[in-house]
Structure formats: C-alpha cells, structure tokens
C-alpha cells in the first residue's frame, strides 16, 4: 500500500475509540508499565479483573499465592531483586486486610509496590456489605499513596499515577481500591498515558550545589572520615557512583542491614555492618570518626543505639532523597538532599584523593578483636552442635557469594547478614524496618521471579517458616526454584536470647515445636533433607544448590547460641558487647 493510499484510508475511517471495561483497563495499564508478573488471590469483589485476566494469560503471569500476605511479600521480593515495581492483587475485606502487614513492611523498607484490591459496588460502600472493609482508611498510614476508584474512566490515569508514585523519589507501596462496578463498567478508552508529574508531589529535591560544596569541604578537612550507607544506594541504582566516591576518598565504609550487597563484601574498604548485631569496628568507630558521611540511610534506632551518645564528636554529612529524613534522628551538619545517583558524582568531583589507610587500619585492628572473640568460634566451633554462622560460611563457599540471599526475621537473619557474602547488588532481601516474621518464604518466591536465573536461597528460622509455610503450595504449583534453608534451633531464638540476657533466663513461650519440615515439604512434592551433623553439612548444602527445582534443607543448630556482638537497647554503639 502506498503512503498516499494509507493516508486516505486513515482519513476515511473515523477514529475508532475502543470500548474497554475497567478491568481490562487495569490490565492494559500493567502491560504498559512493563509488568510481567502479578502475585495475587482472587475473590468476590475482584472477580471482574480475574475474568479479564483470563484473556491476558499470554502477556501477564499470575502467581496464585496461598495467602494475600504471601502475595505482597512476594511482590516485595520481586521488587528487591528486579529493581522494578512489584504488583499484588487481592479481593476486598479479608483479602485487603491481609495485605496490611506487607504494606507496612514495604513502607518502612521503601519497596516500590502497587496493590490492586477489589471493593464492593460503590452503591454498597458504607453499608457493611459482605466483605466490605474501609481499606483506604486502614491502609493510609502504611502506604505512600492510596486511592479508591469508583468510576472506570479514572482507571488509566490513576494506575499511571500509582506506578509513578510507587517507583519515584523514595519508593513505597501504593494501594488502589477499585469498586466492582468500576471494574465492570465499559468506557471509551483513549489509550494509556504515563504519569511524569503531579503538582503536589516532589519526588526529588533539587540538588543544591552550595551544600555539595560545603559537604566536600567538610570531608576534605576530615582526618577520620567514615561512610555509612543504606538501601538508598541500591534504590538509586548508584552502586558504581558510590564505589567511585569511597575509592577516591579512601573512606572506610559500613553498611546497614538494608544496604547489604550495595558494595561487595570483599571490597577492601568495606568494614562491615552497623547496628545492634553489626560488626564491632564500625559501631565503635562511629564514636571515633570526625566526619560521618551517611548515604541513603535513615539512622534507625537499631543502627544508632542510644541517640544522645551517637557520634556526638562528629560532623554529619547526610545524603538522602527524602527531606523528612534530614535531622529526623541525627542532626546533620550538612544535608545533601537529592538522588545519590546525582549527588555522589558531584561530591566525588570535589573531594581530594586521600590516603586514609592508617585510619582504615584501625578498623581492621578492631576487626581482629571481633574475630578472636566472636567470629572464629562461630565459624570454627569446638562443640559438636552446628552454629548458624558455619552454615552460612559453607553456603558462601558453595555459592561464591553470587546467590540472592533472602532471610526471615530473628537470629538467623542477623547471623546471615553478618556472615553472608555478596558480590553484587540487589542480592539481599530481608525485612529490615518492620521485622516481619513470615516474610522470608514468600519474599524468596517473589525474589526468584524477579531474578529467575540466579540462585535464590531463603534462610529461615523454625519460627518464621511456620508463619507462612502455606506458600510451599505456591512453589508446588508454579515451580519457583527457591532453596529453603531452615536453621532450626528449636526456639524463637532472638526472643530467647533477650530473655536470657535481660530477663534472668525466664524463658516465656519461646520454646516452639516444629513439624517434620521435610515431610511437610514432601507433602507439597518438594524434595528435602534434614541434617544435624557437621560432616553432612557441605554435601547437604551442595545437594540443595544443585537440585533443579525447589528444595528444603533443615539444619539443626545449637539451641541456645546467641548472636554477638550486641549493642544492648539503651546503650551507646561504642558500648557494643562482644559476649
């Protein structure tokens, strides 16, 4: 057909406007936003969307989870390994309320998530209709933004706004509640338009050069500069910019739990992890440095310990994208607002190349103390019972530090964060801020869909696995090749540790019994094994990693081992105890 003919034809045909249902518009929006995987669970009020999904099966993969909490944690895991927006579907009422824990988790850990919930017909709102809950009000404090759609014509623009808000600035979860009538309603669809500006929303504060200059001046005058970094580096996709920055300045750098894997563990300037169960050197040196350079982290109380004794000697340079984080917990001497992907190169240009190897060496000296007092015994125990640390250590050797490590919450989490080796970013998936037990298994499923070519190892305690064990069913049905490593100490170990140390060993309801996990896995047609002896450890882990498919390995570890070092609550980071 010639160009002329084509033009004539186009002119002849009146512009056809497509009629779509609200449900179809939702799915069209997801496709335009590049979504390929949805984690969800159907129900009455979201049935029109599921009906439309039936026809979109070739474009959108839907993973049917076993509980909506599992769905949103999976979406979080997906977001963390893929760096993209995770999507979860749930129905109204209980479906939506089951999302709340995950929303709170995603909010505090800044995960980009879009949740779509069904809602009763708009005409029934407020009548205590079947499966009606006030989802918008319930989720307001745990979402970055939420909105109720009662008219289908709003759907394209609201979904575009949802993805824009979830993924820009400091990311966070967004919930869109869509009444059933809006899902069913047919309307004239004019195509999908991406959102890139909302007048009342400023995702990125403008970078102000005067602050960058003053930060550089402060850093250049420092004798003992110390960098502490968080997830902001990963969220800003600024790993390379960060590395260039610390290498030029010669700074020792320590990570928060959420910042793990932003800088490879073996980097010569990586001095370990901060916080309550972090490493000895970075905690002690926080109160020794003269300039503390905090990047993409929010001074959580688990990182700072007692605030009035936190880095009081130091000038603080704080780089963050969220203005509300500046001065929230620790007063910044110089705040550098902005996306660290932009601010770090500006700062790198202005700082001097300095040799801080003597200062770095002081960290290494303290590290030796920690190795002597804690690490050596954890990794080379003299008793027969296995320690969590040695399991992680052997796992490191087998994966080479290339696996995605997902953890649940508790002792195993802290031990894993302390000992796991990371070679590349987006490899650490854990519930940092909220500390959600039960996060691990579903997050690992999502993490695998976010990075299906990578090894995904979920390290979970005997308590946490029992909170969301139903998600084994999701693995069974859809085949996520998640390796599940249960570290079983037959206790709710972290609570037991506190009861031992701070409550005179009055063990109150921390003694938890477990089913035969391997048998449970077998029940879900997932292979598994259980070991308790050191001689079997390496082979068992290797079998788990080599298995083509999901695999559950239960390792019995010391019952009353404690995680050390520890900054006890209400004490200063420099008062960190080694035993």
């Amino acid at each position, binding site marked *: 057909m010639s160009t002329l003919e084509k033009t004539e034809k186009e002119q002849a045909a009146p512009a056809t406007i497509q009629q779509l249902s609200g449900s179809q518009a939702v799915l069209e929006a997801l496709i335009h936003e590049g979504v390929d995987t949805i984690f969800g669970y159907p129900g009455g009020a979201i049935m029109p969307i599921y009906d439309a999904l039936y026809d979109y099966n070739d474009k959108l993969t839907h993973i049917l989870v076993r509980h909506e909490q599992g769905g949103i944690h999976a979406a979080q895991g997906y977001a963390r390994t893929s760096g993209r927006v995770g999507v979860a579907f749930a129905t109204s009422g209980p479906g939506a309320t089951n999302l709340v824990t995950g929303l709170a988790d995603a909010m505090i850990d800044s995960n980009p998530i879009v949740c779509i919930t069904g809602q009763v017909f708009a005409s029934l709102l407020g009548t205590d209709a079947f499966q009606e809950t006030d989802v*918008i*009000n319930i989720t*307001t*404090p745990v979402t*970055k*933004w939420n909105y*109720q759609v009662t008219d289908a014509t709003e759907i394209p623009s609201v979904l575009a706004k949802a993805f824009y*808000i979830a993924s820009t600035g400091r990311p966070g979860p967004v919930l869109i509640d869509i009444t059933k009538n809006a899902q069913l309603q047919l309307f004239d669809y004019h195509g999908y338009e991406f959102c*890139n*500006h*909302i*007048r*009342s*929303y*400023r*995702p*990125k*504060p*403008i970078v*102000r050069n*005067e*602050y960058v200059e*003053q930060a550089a*001046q*402060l850093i250049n*005058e420092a004798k003992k500069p110390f960098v502490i970094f968080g997830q902001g580096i990963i969220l800003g996709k600024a790993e390379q910019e960060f590395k260039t920055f610390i290498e030029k300045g010669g700074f020792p750098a320590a990570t928060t739990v959420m910042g793990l894997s932003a800088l490879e563990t073996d980097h010569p300037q990586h001095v370990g992890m901060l916080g309550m169960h972090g490493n000895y050197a970075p905690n002690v040196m926080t109160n020794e440095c*003269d300039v503390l350079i905090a990047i993409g982290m929010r001074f959580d109380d688990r990182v700072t310990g007692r605030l009035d004794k936190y880095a009081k000697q130091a*000038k603080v340079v704080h780089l963050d994208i*969220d*203005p*509300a984080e*500046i*001065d*929230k917990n620790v007063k*910044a*001497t*110089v*705040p550098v*607002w902005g996306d660290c992907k932009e601010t770090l190169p500006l700062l790198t240009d202005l700082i001097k190349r300095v040799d801080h190897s003597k200062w770095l060496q002081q960290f290494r000296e303290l590290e030796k103390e920690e190795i002597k007092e804690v690490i050596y015994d954890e990794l080379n125990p003299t008793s027969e019972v296995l320690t969590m640390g040695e399991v992680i250590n052997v796992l490191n050797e087998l994966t080479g530090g290339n696996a995605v490590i997902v953890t649940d919450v508790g002792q195993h989490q802290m031990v894993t964060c302390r000992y796991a080796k990371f070679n590349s970013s987006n490899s650490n998936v854990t519930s940092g801020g909220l500390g959600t037990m039960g996060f691990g298994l579903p997050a690992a499923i999502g993490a695998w869909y976010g990075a299906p070519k990578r090894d995904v190892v979920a390290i979970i305690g005997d308590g946490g696995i029992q909170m969301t064990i139903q998600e084994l069913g999701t693995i069974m049905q859809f085949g996520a090749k998640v390796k599940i490593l249960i570290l079983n100490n037959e206790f709710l170990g972290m609570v037991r540790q506190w009861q031992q140390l701070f409550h005179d060993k009055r063990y109150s309801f921390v003694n938890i019994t477990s089913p035969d996990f391997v048998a449970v896995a077998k029940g879900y047609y997932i292979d598994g094994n259980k070991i308790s002896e050191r001689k079997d450890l390496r082979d068992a882990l290797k079998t788990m990693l080599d298995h083509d498919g999901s695999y559950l390995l239960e390792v019995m570890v010391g019952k009353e081992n404690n995680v050390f070092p520890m900054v006890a609550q209400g004490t200063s980071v420099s008062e960190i105890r080694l035993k």
Partner: protein
Amino acid sequence: MEKQEYTITLYTENSIGMIGRISGIFSRRKINIESLNTSPSEVEGIHRFTILITESEEVVRKLCRQIEKQVEVLKAYFNTNDELIWQEQALYKVPAHVIAEKAYVERLLRQYGANVVVIRNDYIVFETAGHREEIDRLTEELGKYNLIEFVRGARIAIIKESAGFHSKLIQFEKTEPSQEIVENEFLDQQDNVFTM
C-alpha cells in the same frame, strides 16, 4: 525546647480523605490537635488547612516535613503567634430576658464587640470574633447569666509575611523540582560548622 502555640498552614489538593490523612500524622505521634480548620484558599482548587498545636519547634518542624511527604500536600508552613494575624469566632445563645433585664450584660456584649445574629422572644444569639483569651473571658462572664449555648470555631490565620500561594503554585506546576521545597538553617551557620 519549650513548647508553645504553633499554627500550621497547609496548602493541599482538595481530595477526599485529606483530613484523615493529615490528622493521622498527628495522632500517630500522640500530638493533640487543638483546632483544625479547612477552607478554600485564594487559589481555586487549592485547599487550606489551619491547624493549631502546642509543641516545641523541633517537633513542629519534623511534623511539617512528614506532612509535606503526603502526595496531596503542596506545602506546609508553621508559625508562632507573633508571625500571624489570627481570629477565632464564637456564638453565644443568651436568654432574651437576661439582655432585657441586665444592663451589665448588654454593656459586656458591647464591650466585647459582639454582634446580634438572631433575636427571638426566648433567646438572642450573639457572635464575636477575636483571640482565644477574649472569647474565654466573655464566655466566663456570660456563664454567670444563664448562657444557654456556646460554640467556638477553629482558629483561622493569615501569615503576615506571606505573599499568598499563586506564585508558589506556578512553581509547583512546573515539572522540575522546586528550589524552595526544603529550607535549611545550615546556610546561615557556616561559621559554626567549619571550626573543627
């Protein structure tokens, strides 16, 4: 830092649920809202919140940053009383016979600049506007003379230094981030910083 009265002025989108969204930020931190007024602003489509709390400056500053984080909030300001012109309104329902029989009450109402809103056989409704203390004093006095009903409105306030929101809104409607989105006192304190 000492607690004192702060008036928070918010410019927001006029969307459903804004009061809940905003008040949640206060209640989460167990901060009592003493008065809250919502109204249109000088700019069409932009809503104005006036919120009165008694807190320290540090708490109020942090609160305002958290409020500004809300997607629908354009800007949050906080001011002490001396930076504002503010008023509260009150309505009083007084028995008609009291006014007729007690010259003192009539004098009192004149003295406080109260205006008659409604006159009925059985009662008269007066209106007055002013600062909290004045209203409280009048209420106390009228209380001695069978005051039937009393209600006081939320504080509304005009910021003395403000040039209104029109020019700000133009800034907000531009797609690039605004210079002024966060202010910091650091720039004025450079001398104290570089003394290490």
